[in-house]
């Protein structure tokens, strides 16, 4: 059981961003992808989730053996893939409570209604754990939220939707240290044998809180190096130049 990315190539317009990327995240593990700006990290996240602006030219993304590339974005989600956005979208007039309810309702068979009492109980418990004020349920999704509130709201959605694989795209960006701790605790609470995580980050800092099993380094649309958590520390201390040189030498 894994999230498996196989020789993935993808373009936006005429520009190739992902250039034959291979990566395997077994269920129950936390993998991190680090890389410089422009290396294709966020593109990878969006391509996996089926964003319509990207064109996949070859390769595949398999979620427990099922190809995600054949699916609409909403099917990818219901199949178990969650993407925590780097820039979560604002949906004016749609409350968090109604939004999550619609998302959960979409997972039920036709004709079955969500149990409202159980839903709110679950929602409030998870909001409390993430230190999100309960009044947020009646606020519009991300509308007028601070950066930290948006990211906590992403983790709340993840906790409610219980994905089998979650991709966290730069979840640490824009967070102060307190918010970072809360968000990390939220992620760590979901760690377990039933969930795989792919944590995309620019900085090593996040990985002090969400300790990865494997760290991958992405350069120019490919994974060029993988290692344990010490790799993140080395990147933090020495930068990316040495990885790029090694990658160039290997090519």
């Amino acid at each position: 059981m894994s999230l498996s990315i196989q020789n993935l190539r993808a373009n936006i317009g005429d520009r190739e961003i992902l250039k034959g990327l291979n990566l395997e995240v077994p269920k129950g593990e936390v993998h991190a992808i680090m890389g410089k700006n422009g290396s294709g990290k966020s593109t990878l996240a969006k391509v996996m989730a089926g964003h319509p602006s990207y064109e996949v030219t070859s390769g595949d993304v398999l979620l427990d053996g099922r190809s995600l590339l054949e699916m609409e974005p909403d099917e990818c989600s219901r199949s178990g893939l969650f993407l925590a956005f780097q820039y979560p979208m604002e949906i004016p007039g749609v409350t968090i409570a109604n939004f999550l309810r619609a998302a959960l309702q979409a997972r039920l068979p036709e004709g079955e209604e969500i149990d409202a009492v159980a839903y709110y109980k679950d929602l409030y418990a998870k909001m409390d754990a993430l230190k999100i004020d309960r009044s947020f349920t009646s606020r519009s999704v991300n509308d007028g939220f601070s950066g930290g509130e948006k990211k906590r709201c992403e983790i709340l959605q993840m906790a409610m939707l219980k994905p089998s694989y979650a991709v966290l795209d730069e979840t640490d960006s824009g967070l102060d240290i307190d918010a970072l701790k809360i968000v990390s605790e939220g992620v760590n609470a979901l760690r377990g044998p039933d969930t795989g995580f792919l944590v995309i980050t620019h900085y090593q800092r996040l990985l002090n809180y969400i300790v990865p099993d494997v760290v991958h380094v992405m350069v120019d649309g490919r994974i060029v190096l993988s290692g344990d958590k010490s790799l993140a520390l080395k990147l933090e201390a020495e930068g990316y130049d040495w990885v790029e040189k090694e990658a160039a030498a290997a090519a």
Partner: protein
Amino acid sequence: MSTDTKPDIAIDRSVGDFRYDVDYEYDAGVGLSEKTIDYIADVKGDPDWIRRFRQDAFRKFKEMPMPTHWASPDLNNIVFENIRYYLSKGTQPKRSWDEVPEEMKLTFERLGIPEQERKFLAGVEAQFDSEAAYSNIKAAVGEQGVIFVGSTEGLHKHPEIFRKWFGKVIPTGDNKFSALNSAVFSGGSFIYVPPGVKVKHPLQAYFRINAESFGQFERTLIIADEGSEVMYMEGCTAPKFETSTLHSAVVELVALKGAKIQYVTVQNWSPNVFNLVTKRGLAHEEAEIKWIDCNIGSRLTMKYPGVVMKGRKARGEVISIALASDGQHQDTGAKMIHAADETTSNIVSKSISVGSGRATYRGLVHVPKHLKGCKNNTECDALLINAHSRTDTYPAITVRGQGNACQHEASVSQISEEQIFYMQQRGIPEGAAMSLAVNGFVNDLVQQFPMEYSVELKRLIDLEMEGSVG
């Protein structure tokens, strides 16, 4: 990558799109002439002053040009000679559903009217083509002295009130279509609420067009006497025909000192209906008139509910939602005429344009120089769903004099591909995501609708948005 990848949205009007064959007893035939006017006046047993009122109006209608110098040229596609102006099975509405002719009863049952009446309404009038098939008011409300009858019964049985206000808020020659209505009007409601009476539950009228190439011209007059309160709701549907249908109503409201009238419309005409309606209220001292107007259907709607604030501290409000789908033009807005000191008006308009749909907002706010302490607030927001959807705003604001204030805000937004992707990434299918976003856009206004209507409205928007997606 296409800039407009959203799928076209088909219109699902299955709710109102059905019809029964009816044998009409009275039929004015096709076309409009003096004879048509006489026929209608004869069938309805009009008193002489109404007959003269009709004839005078018909002359004005013929003289007045189509307002195509500012309005849509689509108006020229109305062929007045091809329309039937009066169709009924008799002029007397029934007081009990059991007595209503079977095909009409079935129609209203399918539309859920008797059920709504039992649940939450103080009275119902159900108009089928030219005349009300059913009209009834709950006994408790009637005992308070509230009159709720059809316009014909109103003018026959309550001439002392009817004649005093009829045609006074909207003069016959206000526009070409108010003249047409005045010439051939039939049906609509007459309501009188005595001083101090607060009608707790809404009174509802339902307007149903059943016949093809037909024109419906109801005429509604509501008078709320001093300190009284009433809410009136109207719904409308028609089956979809190949030929065009005309609906041209005139609605006059009079709120006497300290009275409150709320008038709620949910218009869901089929896309062959020209919906050209004149609605205006006269608010006396400290009175309040609020139009809550929702336009979802029709081919072309032209409707600008207005309030003339005639007395000191009178208030006028228009809350409107328009949804223009493929091939539709919703040309709506509001008119606020301040005619006394310390009068306040508020206009909040939200429109949604889908596919080739076009939404136009026209707003008139008039505060003359000699008045003091008047305030107007206007907000109009447009949402465009597809790249070729269209919206236009034509505000006409004349605020003169010292100490009068006016505030105007307008916005145009689009549901972005990124928003839809975000919602889809949470598992919500594309159609439902669009629907959620559109409902979110109008959410604050829908809150102001009576519960039963806000549920209906959400359902209609869901149907519109989900149509063929998925």
